[in-house]
């Protein structure tokens, strides 16, 4: 080991390569970072929000299940409280968004005495079947959105909305 001496030339080579390498890395890193940025983006709202609804309590009749999550509006973070209409169809749990596809009012299950087994929008009398399908001849043009659901410790968790898969 002791006779394996590092010459001045070798020392300078190593040092320059090392320093040069760091400098190159310093320049390339941000470029690579920008290039793959979309991959690194955190997907917001992709997580499931816990509710305090026991899955065992769900029946075939849609019930209102409240949940709240944080929303960032530019610099302003606030809690948004929302809810879903949840019912069981066989073993499957269905959670429908209460937002009317017409102009965004809140629909309610059995909201109109004339249609006790449909969702009803009080604004313009839009109606949806239990599976969220819009009733022809009423203002809404599409079915209600559906929430992704999962069950954890017997409690319901609500995820992202997606286009209705039941219709």
């Amino acid at each position: 080991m002791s006779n394996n001496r590092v010459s001045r030339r070798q020392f300078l080579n190593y040092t320059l390569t090392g320093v040069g390498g760091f400098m190159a890395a310093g320049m390339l890193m941000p470029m690579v970072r920008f290039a793959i940025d979309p991959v690194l983006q955190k997907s917001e709202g992709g997580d499931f929000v816990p509710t305090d609804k026991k899955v065992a309590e769900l029946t075939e009749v849609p019930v209102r299940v409240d949940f709240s999550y944080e929303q960032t509006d530019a610099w302003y973070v606030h809690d948004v409280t929302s809810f879903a209409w949840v019912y069981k169809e066989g073993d499957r749990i269905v959670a429908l968004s209460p937002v009317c596809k017409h102009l965004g009012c809140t629909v309610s299950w059995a909201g109109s005495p004339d249609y006790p087994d449909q969702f009803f929008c009080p604004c313009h009398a839009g109606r949806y079947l239990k599976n969220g399908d819009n009733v022809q001849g009423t203002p809404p043009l599409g079915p209600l959105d559906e929430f992704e659901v999962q069950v954890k410790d017997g409690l319901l968790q609500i995820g992202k909305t997606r286009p209705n898969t039941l219709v």
Partner: protein
Amino acid sequence: MYWNSKDMSVFLEQQEYIDTAVVPLLLVDGQASKLKQNASSVEFIMALTAFIENQFKGRVVLIPPVTYTQRTNREQLGTEWDEMLKEAGFKHLFFISSDMRWGTESSSLDVIYTPSIPLEHMDKKLRQSVLDDQLRQIIPVFAKRWANSTK
């Protein structure tokens, strides 16, 4: 709908469906003795009208709150807003206030009076349920006026 440019562009396209304006009437009183209570009732009406907006998003426009002081000529203020909003094309106007004087005076305005509930000491859940209850009392008022006009 809120009174912002994004919602207003929808409003302009869908004016046949969006025919109702909700106007919060807020008394602002800076007297030290009334300040806290006043602020609390303003907070309540703002929260309640936001709830109404959320429920009836596709039919109502929540107008920016109309504020006034003890000295304001309420009769004139009301008439001005009433006329302006009718000219803007709104068929139904819902004025909402926790100032009792709107109801007692012989005002041409039909103000929905709602007693103010102090929300500041409530936690989020209680707040939500209190406002839900209030909203449930107001829904029939809306439904009734809407139904009357279609007949």
